[in-house]
């Protein structure tokens, strides 16, 4: 991926893949409550996709200079595998870790390119993933770590 459009297309596809991933897991899980949560996650990924589509058309600007709080919650949690009976806690950990992986991908790519519009876009995409990770980490902080 060498151009801005190529990287944006890649990022847009990734958001759709993430949305599809959550919908697939939602089909597998047994409880209606868990299904709903996963479908909400899917909807969140579709929202991210819409933002990136708007970036591509110039209707929305990425904000690479913005500082995004990193709660680092997901950094020290164990990897969770998808199963038919994942818990709410598991679902949030999966979501946090996916966002962290996406953030790392764009950050690493940004480090490898010289100063350019492409670098600017990659950093901007990394910041978007950081925002998504913060969303899930804040949910985890509120819903799971109630007593800690």
């Amino acid at each position, binding site marked *: 991926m060498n151009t801005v459009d190529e990287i944006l297309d890649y990022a847009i596809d990734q958001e759709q893949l993430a949305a599809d991933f959550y919908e697939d897991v939602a089909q597998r899980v047994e409880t209606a*409550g868990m299904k*709903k949560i996963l479908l909400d996650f899917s909807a969140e990924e579709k929202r991210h996709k819409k933002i990136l589509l708007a970036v591509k058309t110039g209707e929305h600007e990425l904000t690479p200079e913005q500082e995004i709080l990193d*709660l680092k919650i997901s950094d020290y949690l164990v990897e969770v595998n998808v199963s038919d009976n994942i818990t709410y*806690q598991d679902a949030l950990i999966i979501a946090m870790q996916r966002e962290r992986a996406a953030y790392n991908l764009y950050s690493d790519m940004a480090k490898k390119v010289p100063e350019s519009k492409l670098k600017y876009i990659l950093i901007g995409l990394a910041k978007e993933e950081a925002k998504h990770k913060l969303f899930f980490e804040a949910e985890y902080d509120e819903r799971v770590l*109630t007593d800690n």
Partner: protein
Amino acid sequence: MSLKDLLSPFFVWQRAFEKPYTTLRPTLDRPGAPAYRGFHINITETCVGCGSCQTICQNNAIDMVAVDSYAGRDGDSGLRPRFDYGRCCWCGLCVDICTAASLRMSNEYAWISDDPDSFHFTAGVDDKPWQDNELGYRRAEGYHLNPPKRIEMPMLAAEESLKSFAEVTLGYNEEQAKNEADRCVECGICVATCPAHMDVPDYIHSIRDGDYEKGLQLMYRTNPFPATCGRICTRRCESVCPVGILGEPVAIRWLKRFIVDQVDKKDYKRILEKPIENTDFKVAIIGAGPGGLSAAYYLRQQGHAVTVYEAQETGGGMLRYGVPSYRLPDAELDKDIDHITSIGVDIKYNSRIGKDIMFESLLEDYDAVFLSTGLSVPSSMRINGENHSRVLSGLQILADVASDRDPGIGKKVAVIGGGNVAMDAARVSRRLGAEVTILYRRRISDMPADEEEIHESQEEGCTIVSQAIPVEIIDAENMQQVSIKWGEAKMVDDPKGGRARPVLQEDKIHTETFDCIISAIGQSSNLDYLSKEVQEQLAIEWGKFTPGEYQHTSMQKLFVGGDFANRTADAISAIEDGHHAARGINRFLNPDFYTQLEKQDN
């Protein structure tokens, strides 16, 4: 007649042509003294409408009236004092008793009007020129007509309390209870805030009257767990007690306990018995915790046959298996539960739904079902090494101790978490002879545990390390021990304006070794006894129910309540959920009766 008397009329005429000595309306130019007791001022934002001014007024010159802008505020009656200056004698007692120090007097004293009704006014609400007067009578600093300090609850000293699981609080004697009851201004603001809307001022009044049987009856109208709540209630009532604005709130919880302690269990039947007219309806309740048993009590009072299914061998739920006996002795919990069973509630112990009996069969066989199985599954830390054999669950430790089993914690323990389960696990560990360190992710001020629990855990020698984030569990050199890596956290503001969040500082990691690590970071529900098909029909989000009116679910016969159906997760909320569900089940079983009742009311 003397010569002077004869000539005096002529001297009067002399005065007729002189300038008069009197001045018109002299008082308007003469301000009242700086501490003059003039017309009333009320700082209505500070006032909570407790009505103590109305109560103390010797001339019935004050009425509490509703003011729309204060309606519905938590900790506020929505009323403000209205003065009748036809009756007021400006003694200032209302200012002296004011619990919020919002009431004061201006140094203004002249008010001329030809409308007699204008001399009734609501201070601070009706626009008056003296409302912002700086001068006038104010209550002296530190002067209280009502004692600001509560009667201290006698307690076991920390060193003594650690020797056993004996109850730490010793209870008021009669003199202490009456003195504390006297501090209550009977405003009733606490009633609205209490989740169960207990008749607090009335039962406190019964202490003043020495009528404890009446006090017990009053409590049972809204709460079948007074012995329990008199010991461990979260006491939201006290947080809005107006006496607590300038002093310490009335010790409502301890007064509740005092009443229960005066009445022998064997007299409960005589004092509380009401005739029960049996109906043909049968209700099943799942869970013999405070929610389930509260529903059972009020449903049985309506005459329905009530059967409670409980998985454990005794009732009480978290009250039995989560709250240690030094806070809530078994005998007190049993006092509450035994009265509930004495009115005909049948509890089937060791009956696990989904194993011993199926949920669907209860729906089939009963006219209504109430679910209240709480939050019994401990959340896991999900950090590497958590499956180490020396990492134990706080809930399991408490259940073991409640069942007289040795939890095997060793002598040096770390407790992870800052809620009541963490505090209970820590204090239980101290009583088992362990040295305890509590590691909590945020600041002490953020801890969700009761402040009293936090304080007492420290008094009992627990060390709290705040802003400590667990990172990894690893083997210790000694196989009987375990090590934990934890990092220091810095608190950062939430960009969305929520509470501050802890962020790990990766260059500040510590490793410590313990005999065991007790995890108490939160709990969730176990709804495995509900089939997928049943769960599909219910509004369950994040493992919690969101019931509708009267705790009713979308399934016709099913009602839910307790920790997995409310946001507060305390005993009193579960008790009220149970009572509210009982009202809902009655309406569900007798719809015609309630429709007629509503028609009559309208």
